[in-house]
């Protein structure tokens, strides 16, 4: 059993007023300190390549996407957010998606599509904001998903670094 005895207040403390003055001085000093609130839409969140934002398709330097519509990401996706309709193309890779849709309302930003992709075509971007006036507008098609490679370069490098480390550690064990 613990007996907690109340601390006897000194005369100074029982008078209230000196302690009130002390409290007031503290709050007055805080008045001039810089606010720590982030003014969100104007001051965006700090992002880095580790952030898993919404998946985007890489547009290579020649203007084409790397996707060959193999459907690996479609299968990997635990939320069934990806729908791919493949078709033929005259380019040497012979196949490309005619339709590539990600339902952003279903996407859980897990990054499995990025891991599954054998052609380094899909990567998680740092885009996190998602708002629109209808559900249909939030099903992103090819045009909305395309991003230039330069915009995703940091993430691509990071994924390569991560994969290399994983390979090394698995080979030694």
């Amino acid at each position, binding site marked *: 059993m613990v007996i907690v005895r109340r601390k006897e207040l000194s005369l100074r403390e029982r008078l209230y007023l000196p302690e*009130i003055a002390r*409290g*007031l001085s503290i*709050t007055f000093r*805080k*008045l*001039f300190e*810089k*606010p*720590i609130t982030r003014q969100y839409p104007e001051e965006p969140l700090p992002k880095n390549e580790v952030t898993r934002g919404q998946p985007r398709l890489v547009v290579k330097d020649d203007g084409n996407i790397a996707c060959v519509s193999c459907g690996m990401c479609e299968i990997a996706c635990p939320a069934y957010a990806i729908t791919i309709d493949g078709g033929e193309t005259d380019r040497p890779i012979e196949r490309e998606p005619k339709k590539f849709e990600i339902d952003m309302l279903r996407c859980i930003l897990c990054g499995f599509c990025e891991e599954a992709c054998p052609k380094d075509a899909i990567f998680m971007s740092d885009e996190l904001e998602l708002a629109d006036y209808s559900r249909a507008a939030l099903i992103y098609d090819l045009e909305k998903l395309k991003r230039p490679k330069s915009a995703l370069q940091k993430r691509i490098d990071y994924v390569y670094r991560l994969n290399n480390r994983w390979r090394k550690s698995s080979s030694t064990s």
Partner: protein
Amino acid sequence: MSPELLEIVVWIVKVHVIFLGMVGVAAITTLAERKVSAWMQYRHGPTRVGPQGLLQPLADGVKFIFKESLVPDGANKWMFRFAPALAAGPAMLTVAVIPFGPDVTLFGVTTPFSIVDLDIGLMYILAIGGLSVYGVIVGGWASNSKYSLLGGLRASAQMVSYELSMILAILSVVAISGSLDLREVVMQQKTLGEWNILYQPVAFLLFLIAAFAETNRHPFDFAECEPELVSGFHTEYSAMRFALFALGEYCAMVVMSSVAVALWFGGFSVPFMPEAHWTLGILAFCAKVTCFLFFFLWVRWTLPRFRFDQLMNLGWKVMLPIALVHLFITGAVISFAPQLKSLWNGLVNGAS
């Protein structure tokens, strides 16, 4: 224009300037409250409406006007509708006797800058200001809600206990200045050495504490104690009726600050400039009142709320005896040793 007509016109202009100025200040104080609280807690406060959020009171006002004003089913409808006016009215009425500035000369007309100069101004303020608690009680009673009723009851108990100490504290000042006319009291404090705060600091402290209780401000805002009473007497109020309660509270703050300034801090007298122009006088008064308003906000965001029994203890067992003894000593000194005042006066003015 005949002199009578001119007097009426001047009077109407004064009423409008002072009353609208008052409501404007009350509105700005609501913004100041949010800003000061924010800065003390490392936040920004309202920033969206207008530059730095300066138009926030306007947006609030528009919102209050357009919201639905609900009347609860079990409420006493007419009392419920009447209570906000009863709370805000007295606070606005008391503005009438406050001397905001010295004699103003504009367009060749000279007039004292207050709506009326009652020779019993202080009595008027205490009498009318005391009425504002009825708004709270009636509002709490008519809402037919247990929270509101408790809030109203607490408000009445609190007002009764603190009004006494407040009147006694004011009486001490009245005793040394010999007048109930606020303008007269201010006129007696022309220079810094004559400010009553130097002669009656204890009375000022008592008045200050009582003023917090009278205006229902922290740390004595038991009538609207959020954690226990869910905003107390105005739990059931919405829209403009709710806003009127808030307006009444802020107007009461301005009046209390003005009374404190007039009684203890030389009112519209400018320090070191006894013969200053009237514009400076009004500015000095506004600056002093602003300091007090800031103090109200500052205390609110520093101190936690008292416990209700502590409030009653403080009111009856500490403040009232001190106020009584203080008034007694003041009276004794004035009657039997009036030379003490001139001695103290010499000391103060020699030092400053």
